Structures are given as structure tokens and as C-alpha cells.
């Protein structure tokens, strides 16, 4: 295209349009963010804590994709590359291989010929009892992403062995549709009454698994969720009233207070990697550890965007370059200023990681 269609007037207009933009100096801030304290088994980790990176400016992409509220991850091509949205320079052609969603197509109606990174909520044990937690999983789609995400949640397809479904075996989602500002989830194989052996709390959590997952995967805010059973409206599912559309229960009463979003169970990590998640932790402090067996080999903390009223996103950078290759556990925790003396103690979310 070199010359015949190169319009110098456009060059001038575009250059002129930003000629008055004088960005603030950010080198110091970038340096702060890239300064990762080296940590190794040879150095006591105590010295490293003070140097841990405080990620004040979480990446735009990471906040959007992994923030406290479910966001458009399911249909976003970038999200299907990696949760942190890092471009891969060696795969320059990759963006074109990703499906380009058209603007007016709802995720539930998207063609099924792709793969996507889907959010799904599962049950897990915490010091506060059973809570829900979110996991992202990259899956090949044979149906719309919202339907696939709800199926993952209901059938318990989590990668993390600590996560499970609250739904009785045999339950599944037939289809999920978005229409007129509401999400309709059509279930099958699920009992209308509460099965014996299932507590009322578990039944509520099962319903909330579907509500949170459908809202997150649909990525259109907190839409009401209408449950149907085999295509027909039903007064109850698992003994919970479903005659009207359901809203999500309060985060603080429903979600585990910390979870890791950007690591998959068993993921191989770079020497330095960015990890993100959501938490509601004392003074927004989210301590993390890398453990080998019971031994802590690296440690630091992230700072979430907020705390108290709900879960807020956090992002931090972890340096494992000094660690010997092997399998480790990454744990993100809520802060417990009492050191366990009060309350139920910290919640933690753990992921197995592999250091090359």
C-alpha cells in the first residue's frame, strides 16, 4: 500500500490529534511493578515480604476479565488466550484465528465452533462453611458459552479438586437462553423437591451456583435468572422456590472470601508470572504463599481494589525464578490480623503450579 493510497493529510490529522497529549511520567511506577523480590528456599522469606509488589494499577484487561463482578470473558477472544490478556509475540497470527463476535449477537446464540474460557461457580469448604468460588476453564464449545458454563457448574466439571458441585448426580442444563433482560436456564434431571441428605443451605447454594454462573458467563450484569425444568416452568427445584426469576445472593454470604482466577490447577508458570483473583480481605490485603509440601518457599501479598462490602479484584506478580523445577502449591489467603486468635481463621484458595 506504500504510496498510492497514503494520504499525508490523514497523517497530519492523526499526529495533530494527539500532539497535545503529554503523558505523565510513569517510569517509577513501572519499575515498582516490575521489581519482584527474588525469593528462594535459600533466603528466609521474611526479608522478602517488605519488597513484595503492590499492584496498585491492575491491568485494564485483567480487571475487566477477572474483576469482582462477572465480566465478558466467555465471548472475548482475548480471554480465551490467557486470563491475563498477555499477547504472545510468537503467535502473531493468533488474533485472526479467534472468532470475532459480532456486536449484536448474544453469547448464548454464538456459533458452536469455537473454544472459550468460561467462568463457573462451584462449592468449596471455607472457615465460614460451604461457599461458592469461581473457576475459569478453557473448553471447546459444542453449544453456546453460557449453556456450557452452566453445564460445567451443575455437573461439577471443575479442574480444582477442592471444588465440587452442589447438584445431585444426573442433573444438567439442557439450554440457556438470554431474552428480554433475563436469563432462562432449562434444567433436566434435577429433582423438584429437596433430596434427602441435602441441607437447605446446600440447596440454596446449588441454585446460586447456577445464578452466579449464568450471570458471569452471559456477562451482561446481574440479570435475573429464571429456572425451568425440561422446558416447563416449575414451582420448585431442589425444594427452592423457582416460580419467579432469581437474583444473586449477597456476595459476602455466598462466595468464598478469596479465590484465584488466573491460574489453572496444574498450570506451568513462567519464572515471573502475574496472578489475579478476587477477595474480601482485611484492609484489602491478600497474602499469598508458594509452598512445597508444608514448607513456604516464597511469600508476599497483593492489595485488592477494596474490601468489606463485596469481593474486589487483586493482581500481583510472583517470582519463582529461583525455585528448583518441580510442583508447588500457590495459595492466596484472606488476611487474619488476629493470627487465628479470633474468628474462623483465614480462607485460602490453592492451586497446584509447575515450575519449569
Amino acid at each position, binding site marked *: 500500500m506504500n504510496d498510492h493510497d497514503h494520504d499525508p493529510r*490523514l*497523517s497530519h*490529522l492523526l499526529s495533530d490529534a494527539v500532539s497535545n497529549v503529554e503523558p505523565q511520567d510513569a517510569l517509577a511506577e513501572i519499575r515498582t511493578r516490575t521489581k519482584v523480590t527474588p525469593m528462594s528456599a535459600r533466603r528466609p522469606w521474611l526479608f522478602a515480604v517488605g519488597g513484595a509488589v503492590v499492584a496498585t494499577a491492575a491491568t485494564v484487561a485483567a480487571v475487566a476479565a477477572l474483576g469482582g463482578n462477572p465480566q465478558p470473558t466467555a465471548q472475548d477472544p482475548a480471554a480465551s488466550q490467557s486470563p491475563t490478556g498477555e499477547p504472545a509475540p510468537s503467535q502473531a497470527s493468533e*488474533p485472526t484465528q479467534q472468532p470475532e463476535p459480532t456486536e449484536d449477537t448474544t453469547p448464548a446464540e454464538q456459533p458452536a465452533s469455537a473454544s472459550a474460557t468460561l467462568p463457573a461457580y462451584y462449592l468449596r469448604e471455607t472457615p465460614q462453611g460451604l461457599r461458592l468460588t469461581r473457576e475459569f476453564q478453557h473448553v471447546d464449545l459444542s453449544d453456546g458459552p453460557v449453556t456450557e458454563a452452566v453445564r460445567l457448574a451443575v455437573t461439577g466439571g471443575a479442574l480444582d479438586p477442592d471444588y465440587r458441585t452442589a447438584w445431585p448426580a444426573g442433573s444438567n442444563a439442557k439450554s440457556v437462553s438470554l431474552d428480554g433482560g433475563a436469563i432462562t436456564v432449562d434444567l433436566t434431571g434435577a429433582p423438584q423437591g429437596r433430596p434427602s441428605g441435602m441441607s437447605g443451605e446446600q440447596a440454596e447454594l446449588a441454585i446460586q451456583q447456577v445464578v452466579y454462573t449464568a450471570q458471569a458467563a452471559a456477562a451482561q450484569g446481574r440479570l435475573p435468572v429464571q429456572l425451568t425444568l425440561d422446558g416447563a416452568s416449575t414451582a420448585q427445584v431442589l425444594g427452592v422456590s423457582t416460580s419467579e426469576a432469581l437474583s444473586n445472593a449477597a456476595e459476602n454470604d455466598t462466595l468464598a472470601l478469596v479465590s484465584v482466577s488466573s491460574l489453572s490447577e496444574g498450570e506451568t508458570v513462567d519464572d515471573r508470572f502475574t496472578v489475579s483473583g478476587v477477595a474480601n480481605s482485611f484492609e484489602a490485603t491478600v497474602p499469598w504463599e508458594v509452598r512445597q509440601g508444608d514448607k513456604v518457599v516464597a511469600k508476599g501479598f497483593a492489595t485488592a481494589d477494596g474490601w468489606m462490602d463485596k469481593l474486589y479484584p487483586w493482581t500481583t506478580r510472583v517470582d519463582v525464578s529461583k525455585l528448583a523445577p518441580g510442583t508447588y502449591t500457590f495459595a492466596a489467603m484472606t488476611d487474619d490480623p488476629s493470627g487465628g486468635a479470633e474468628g474462623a481463621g483465614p480462607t485460602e484458595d490453592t492451586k497446584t503450579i509447575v515450575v519449569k
Partner: protein
Amino acid sequence: MTHAMAVPGASAVSPPESTWDADTALTNLYAAHWRQLVRLSVLLVRDVATAEEIVQDAFVAVHDRWSRLRDPDKALAYLRQAVVNRSRSALRHRTVVAKHAARETVQPNGAPADAPVLAAARRAAVLDAMRSLPERQREVLALRYYLDLSEAEIAEALGISRGAVKSHASRGSAALRTLLGDYLEDRS
């Protein structure tokens, strides 16, 4: 690639580029490209604060990858790609609020009374026009007309074919000429 490192005075005192560590590379890349990349991102997302965040993130990412890039040209190509990708994500994920007005620079004294107003209006019109274009056209035009990249460099940065670059450039240029007709003709 024609974009060599342009760090004033750096060549005399710095070790060869291939021996830069990640921190040195970061400092030199920042000195050479920070402002231009922020401006590139402003052409894509419009909001200056958002653009600064995006480009900061790109510099953090390039620091991470220096051990694999080890070359200023490759690093610059990576930075551009990261800025374009992250700008695209930012637009998709959040409505970028136009906070740019707060950062307008003070107009120099001595200009005709209405000149600053006209200049500001023209800049706003150009940025609005860019925002109104389809994503790929906007990206191709920014890389082509602002960074002056070749067709091949744009194809590589966006991960699309040269033919696609050509067609986005042609359609985007035509659209921009239509949208900005007044400014194209009035400019002396």
C-alpha cells in the same frame, strides 16, 4: 524494521543492546517510546488516563519477557502489539469515559483568540472519527498514519494478512476522509 533505538547519549555509555538486562531494556525502551505509545493508545481508546494504564501494563509485560525478546526491535514490536491488543480489550470491557478534556495542555500565548478552540475542535473531531470506525480499520489507520508502519509491519502487529491490512486501510481512509472532510479542506 526501521525503528532503531533512539536514546540520546545512550550508545556511548551503554553496553551493547544484546547484553541489556531487563531493567536496562525497560529504561531505554521507556525513554524512546513511552510518549509515542501513549499517543498511539489515545488514538485507539481516546481517554488519556486509560491509555497511560494500557501502556504501563505493556511495559511491565515487556520487562517480563525481555529474557525471550533480547532485542530492542522485537521488544518494540511486542510493545506495539501489546498496546493495540490491550487497547482493544479496554474498549470491549469498559466504556471508556472521555476524561481527556482535563488533560488538554494550556495554549501558548500569542495565538489568535479562536485558534485554540479550532485546534481543540479539530482534535476532538479526529478522535471521535477514529472511535466511530470499526476496530480493525481504526487500528490499521493508527499504525499506518501515526506510527508510519509498513504494510508488513502492520500485518505482523495485528496478526492479519497484508491483504486485510490493505483493505482495512483503504476503507478506513475513505471513511475518515468523509468524516473529516471539513478539516481536510479547511486546513491551510
